[in-house]
């Protein structure tokens, strides 16, 4: 019984401590997402509406990877290289972080927060490329 009462007091104390902490500090951990370099168009900030990108960018990267590699289909609107070029921004000293080096890398900021693995960069580079004029073959529209 004493143990139960003690546990009861302890849990109330913990709740109270959390409450006091939360309200006084008011710090909800949030991902620090760097701003992209430019907008896609006047109406739209990214290649698809922002809500859509937040939920489904994985589909473009993963499913289009399949289309690109297995079926030779390439599109200009959804390209990993273009994502990286626009979204990965330099730090104070002007260096671009790789996804492994810095938690401020655009991809990593959310992926670490949500504990989702990224396997893109086991093959691809996570830094912007200086000259992005690779021959990408015949381009198909969606």
């Amino acid at each position: 019984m004493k143990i139960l009462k003690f546990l009861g007091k302890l849990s109330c104390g913990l709740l109270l401590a959390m409450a006091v902490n939360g309200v006084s500090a008011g710090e909800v951990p949030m991902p620090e997402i760097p701003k992209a370099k430019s907008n896609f168009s006047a109406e739209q900030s990214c290649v698809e509406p922002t809500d859509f990108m937040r939920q489904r960018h994985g589909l473009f990267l993963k499913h289009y990877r399949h289309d690109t590699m297995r079926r030779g289909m390439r599109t200009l609107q959804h390209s990993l290289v273009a994502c990286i070029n626009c979204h990965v921004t330099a730090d104070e000293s002007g260096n671009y972080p790789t996804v492994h080096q810095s938690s401020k890398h655009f991809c990593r900021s959310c992926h670490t927060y949500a504990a989702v693995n990224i396997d893109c960069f086991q093959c691809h580079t996570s830094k912007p490329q200086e000259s992005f004029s690779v021959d990408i073959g015949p381009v198909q529209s969606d």
Partner: protein
Amino acid sequence: MEFWTAFYAISFYFATFILLFGLGYKVYQYAITPAPLKIPTTPAPLTTGGVVIRLLSEVVFFRSLFRSNKWIWLFAMIFHLALWIVLIRHLRYFMDPVWTLVVLAQPFGKYGSFLMLFGLLGLLMRRMFVTRICYISAPSDYLMLFLLLTIGISGVLISFVTRTDIVQFKAFILSLLCFDFNWQTMPTDAMLLVHLSAVILLMIVFPFSKLLHAPGIFFSPTRNQVDNPREKRHVAPWAVKEFETSPASTTTTSE
């Protein structure tokens, strides 16, 4: 502040309160309920250490169930293990930074959800098609399965089909945990709302339902008693007071 955010935030606080205090009260009630008789199901362990092992084998491996019915055991085992993996995976929404164990559990949890549904469907089939089980099934038996299936199916749909903004959702949950009453906005995809509603209902119904078998197993006299009736006389404290038979005078009592 959006309606849904406030609605779910308040519902979550309410449900957590009911769950914690309901469960705490139930455990307290179990703890003070007298067990007047020495009734461990034999063969039973002769020492306290043995009882710990027996209880653990019940809790972890469902030993009694295994002995009584193999295929119910199989479905129950699949469901409970998968539920653990899925729950561990969901911890990522409640902590920042996320523990390594939880990070490692992510891919397993994703596919564990299918196992969980498989186990639940098996248990539902049993209830519906085994005639004698169907006969004794009460509406609440179906309600538990229905809630868990709703949670499982909507969860799988969110994860694999309809998607939601999980980063924003985690921010919402953390703002609840920090008691930051300026809550972060919650994503309002239909499937997410269904998922959360079912979770909230399950949390509220937990302390009033057969789901109490989770803490209850530890208080089963047939499982948690040491088999030593001759070495040590079993007297409940209230019986001593009521009938003035002190444990000291036990030797003279005719048995």
